[in-house]
């Protein structure tokens, strides 16, 4: 009760003028009635790496994302949390236009990478995806050797001029992904023969082998056990020195551990964005608070 009131006061948002309504809201009501027009907190930053303005996503007739405005700062880790079906994965997939591959999916609004629109006809989607890499929910190594998995990206983009250079890229990528010591003696074995956690790190190595500027991670640990998860989280912390990372996660603990900023999505709306610490200790919006305290989701 008191927390909700504080949130109300601090943001100055008008919802539930009468005390009775507040009373009602503090229970299990998760309707969209009190979702703010613009996200609470600090969705915008100065000198952003990526900017999204008024992003709408439709699957056929159904709208999945509503007018999202968000900036991603350079070299930050931004976590996107929210209950199932809130559109956080859909939103993430807009950032490197992976939604293009889905029939019936339409994206509206403006998304910019280094102040250039990613929908620009001059910007090829191939080069966009080379700059904005992606790691998926389920580890999906190619049914090829470990070496081939990592070398594939550099090969198709022509990043290596010779065999030695390619070997070098593979080694450094695997090292950065913390997998080198485990696989250096069996690079020619199939990548699908590794354990789940190793496979996911292989996928991360594959993504960073093309030296992207931004890495999108779509629930990278949801299929992994706690130990493998811990390894990936460590890796994210290390990678954040060189890369900008946007991660979607189901686990609030994970968001709290790895991210600098946290964005809370609710039913297709971006509700709140703030420093991770602020979001978890002092959420501004009622829904955020309800979610992180485990009242739904």
């Amino acid at each position: 009760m008191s927390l909700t009131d504080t949130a109300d006061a601090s943001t100055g948002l008008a919802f539930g003028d009468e005390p009775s309504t507040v009373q009602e809201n503090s229970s299990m009501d998760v309707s969209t009635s009190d979702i703010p027009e613009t996200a609470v907190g600090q969705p915008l930053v100065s000198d952003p790496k990526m900017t999204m303005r008024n992003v709408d996503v439709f699957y056929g007739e159904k709208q999945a994302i509503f007018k999202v405005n968000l900036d991603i700062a350079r070299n930050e880790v931004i976590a996107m949390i929210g209950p199932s079906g809130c559109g956080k994965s859909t939103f993430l997939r807009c950032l490197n236009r992976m939604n293009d591959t889905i029939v019936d999916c339409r994206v509206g609004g403006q998304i910019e990478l280094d102040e250039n629109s990613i929908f620009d006809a001059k910007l090829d989607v191939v080069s966009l995806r080379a700059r904005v890499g992606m790691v998926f929910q389920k580890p999906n190594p190619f049914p090829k050797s470990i070496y081939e998995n990592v070398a594939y990206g550099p090969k198709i983009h022509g990043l290596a001029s010779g065999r030695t250079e390619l070997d070098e890229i593979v080694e450094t990528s695997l090292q950065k992904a913390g997998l080198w010591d485990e696989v250096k003696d069996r690079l020619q074995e199939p990548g699908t023969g590794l354990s789940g956690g190793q496979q996911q790190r292989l996928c991360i190595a594959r993504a960073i082998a093309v030296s992207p500027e931004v890495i999108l991670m779509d629930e990278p640990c949801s299929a992994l056990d706690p130990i493998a998860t811990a390894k990936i989280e460590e890796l994210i912390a290390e990678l954040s020195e060189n890369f900008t990372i946007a991660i979607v996660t189901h686990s609030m603990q994970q968001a709290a551990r790895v991210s600098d900023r946290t964005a809370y999505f609710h039913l297709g709306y971006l509700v709140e964005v703030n420093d991770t610490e602020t979001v978890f200790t002092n959420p501004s919006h009622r829904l955020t608070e309800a979610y992180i305290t485990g009242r739904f989701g």
Partner: protein
Amino acid sequence: MSEVKSTIEKVNAGLGKRYRSEKMFQWFGIISICFGLLCVLALFFDIIGKGHSAFKHHSIEIPIMFDADKLGITDINDTKQIYSANYDGVIKASLRELFPNVSGRTEKRKLYKLVSNGSYLTLQKMLLEDPSLLNQTTEVQLITDDDIDTYLKHFVGKESEFERIHAEQVEWLATLREEGRLISHFNTVFFQAGDSREPEQAGIFAALMGSFYTLIVTLCLSFPIAVAAAVYLEEFAPKNKWTDLIEVNINNLAAVPSIIFGLLGLAIFISFFGVPRSTPLVGGFVLTLMTLPTIIISSRAAIKSVPPSIREAALGIGASRMQMVTHHVLPLSLPGMLTGTIIGMAQALGETAPLLMIGMIAFIVDIPGSVTDPATVLPVQIFLWSDSPERAFTEKTSAAIMVLLAFLIAMNAFAIYMRKRLEKRW
């Protein structure tokens, strides 16, 4: 003690019924498999029972004197003379020498009919290869006439049942056997020759080569076209009314009776484009039309079965759609595509009706050397032989079926081998 049954009691009460229906289902399965196997066994038993004798043939070994005068050869280096020499006269003389008691025209004709009337070719070939045989005497094995061979295989001791053999011939053959001049050997002619009106000279090789060339043409055309169509429809084509229409029509095409494709081939390929008739080329064109839908449908299924996560992975690191298809989707779906292709090819191999319309039912004696030579194919050859009145063609028909089946089994085995080799797990 309540009357209400507990959950576990209810479960246990129903268990017997469940197991019974499971057992029954299993038995249905086993019975239908047994029935299928029985049919296949009966088929094989029948065909092999009828056809195995065609792989053997009888020859008569007789001393032949290559008499230059009788042959009419004056200059051994003149191949023209060797080709037109009178070998029949030499053979007849040798036979008369073996049985000097035979007299009278009818008797002699019966004697001459012991050996195939194509025997002169054997002698011609011998003399061409070794001219020094002239004026020499050598033992030569001459294949028997088809009636004699049939008698020797099936009616020894039951002469009355086979009216095409004469009592004198039976006697002579008994004498020849005693002298060790009657030899049963593997029927090489059957695997080396083309068709012939004389069963003992008829072979499967021309039809085999015809089938081979036709299938090569079919494969070279249908596989790339079908794979390209399947990839386009699955990976690139927008999903709208037009692609739905195309899909429906591909499925319809698979159900069109094959004779229609033959008529189409006749009207379009032969009449309009002037492709030579009776050739493996036009046969391959027609069979391509027929196998395309089969391969397209199975290729699409194979492409669909590639997990979308692999596609996302490729696109996610910036592969273009074409790279995604050629580097990942195609290698992974190739085993499935090959299976479909082999099924289509097996269908094409056994197809007769459309080929009748484009003249591949011709009587082909020469072995086709290329896709533009007139040819026939195995099933058409089987059809032709099964229609022939000579008794010896019965076993040849069955033997040809055995060759066709062997060809099919070899093809399928190759397909399974390729699939096993290319298969990858993910």
